[in-house]
């Protein structure tokens, strides 16, 4: 499968996943936020799907940056700029035909771009906790299943955390006991990508 075909299938899988789990994300964001994360991610997914063919037809770096722009201009809220920064950064660093090391470097930069943009660090009950875990699993050479598990565990790990960033931070202790909605949307995306990667490495 060509690179762009794989990107296309990843885009479809992530978008499908965010759309299918919108209600779940809404429920989480209702508990410690304002309830819009589900519709925000669904809107972002639909916007990318609407331009999927054009995006996939472009060279990988541009395709990834296009995805970033589309997400920034469609999701809104805190999640938009953060997911946008991730793909914009990834698109700027990966080469045309990246090998695992190229992806490794690209993902590392993308995760730190998110951290920088959101001025957050791991352990603050945000999507960053999942992105950091997934990236580190990838950089340690784990396979798709291993990376997916790391992401899922990271999402679970946000439940006991005290939120220090984002809307949930306003609740202090009351944020404890709930999974962070952005952490789940990130873990869902990682899982979707891993499955596509697994089917056609």
């Amino acid at each position, binding site marked *: 499968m060509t690179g762009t075909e794989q990107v296309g299938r990843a885009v479809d899988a992530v978008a499908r996943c965010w759309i299918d789990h919108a209600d779940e994300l809404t429920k989480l964001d209702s508990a410690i936020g304002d309830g819009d994360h589900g519709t925000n991610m669904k809107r972002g997914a639909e916007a990318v799907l609407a331009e999927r063919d054009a995006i996939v037809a472009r060279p990988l770096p541009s395709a990834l940056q296009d995805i970033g722009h589309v997400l920034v201009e469609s999701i809104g*809220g805190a999640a*938009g700029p953060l997911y*946008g920064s991730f793909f914009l950064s990834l698109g700027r660093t990966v080469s045309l035909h990246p090998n695992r090391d190229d992806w490794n470097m690209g993902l590392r930069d993308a995760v730190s771009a998110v951290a920088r943009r959101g001025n957050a660090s791991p352990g603050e009950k945000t999507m960053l906790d999942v992105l950091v875990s997934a990236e580190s699993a990838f950089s340690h050479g784990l396979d798709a299943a291993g990376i997916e598990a790391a992401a899922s565990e990271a999402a679970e790990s946000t439940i006991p955390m005290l939120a220090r960033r984002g809307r949930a931070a306003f609740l202090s202790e009351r944020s404890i006991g709930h999974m962070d909605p952005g952490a789940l949307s990130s873990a869902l995306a990682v899982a979707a990508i891993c499955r596509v990667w697994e089917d056609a490495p």
Partner: protein
Amino acid sequence: MKKFVNRIDDAAAEGLAGFAAAYPDHVVLGENARFVRRRHTVPGKVALISGGGSGHEPLHAGFVGTGMLDAACPGHIFTSPTPGQVEAAMGAVEVGAGCLLIVKNYAGDRLNFAMAAEAADRAVQTVVVGDEVLVGSSADGERRGLAGTLVVEKILGASAERGLDLKMLRELGERVVERTRTIGVTLSSCSPHFVRGPTVELGPEEIEFGVGIHGELGRRRASLRPARALVDDMVAAIIADTGSLAGEEILLFVNGLGATPLMELHLMFGLAEEALSAAGARIVRRLVGTYVTSLDTAGCSLTVTRLDAEMTAAWDEPVDTPALRWGC
């Protein structure tokens, strides 16, 4: 929760279209409704731009016009607008004296407005509005941007019309934010279009104390008590944050969160004026009504701004916007 709506996803856009239809002399909708701008800009004036998620009406688009905002960027319900919207608004209303972005202290608002500011090829400064009174353990935390945003927009709006430059406006804005404190109480949370039922379930004798304007959990659950007791707690929390208000000249602004009848807001206003006067404060300016909301939330907020001569004069200046109008 029953609503006047067609397709759920179109609720905010159709509301905005109706708003623009209702105020043709005041505002114009930007291209595919990405922002709302005042009909006539003022040459040489610093452009004031704000915005945020929809669901807080009349904030912010209702404050576009003479003496207040030049443009407002409405996002989806409770979702900050995108950088592209802010950039488009800047392009439409900046007249060479730069833009001052008035941004409520939420991650989404700050992230999106920051990306717009970074991409802008014009002078841009930002005032972050965090007027929430911090309650109990969160003393060191972030202050949410609440009803005090209206006070900041009014004072900056008048000052911009009087010709203050970008730097002076930003400094004045930061001073107003520093001297403005708001605390809100919710009797029942809102039911956003995308959530089946209320965001937060409150029992018949429960309220949320220290709330925001997104239907989210407040600082703490509390029990419903007579209005006087609630107001005394709210005023005590304000004073614990600001320090004594004895001898201070203040603006008292009691704001409805969307579904509270005016009779109850007036009642809360009277009690708040009594409690603040008892604490030695002199109420010299007053505002009561439903201005900075959270969809159909039943609740209200108390905002106190410690005024100085400049702020009072700016507050008194004429304003002609859909939601706030006096002196012209």
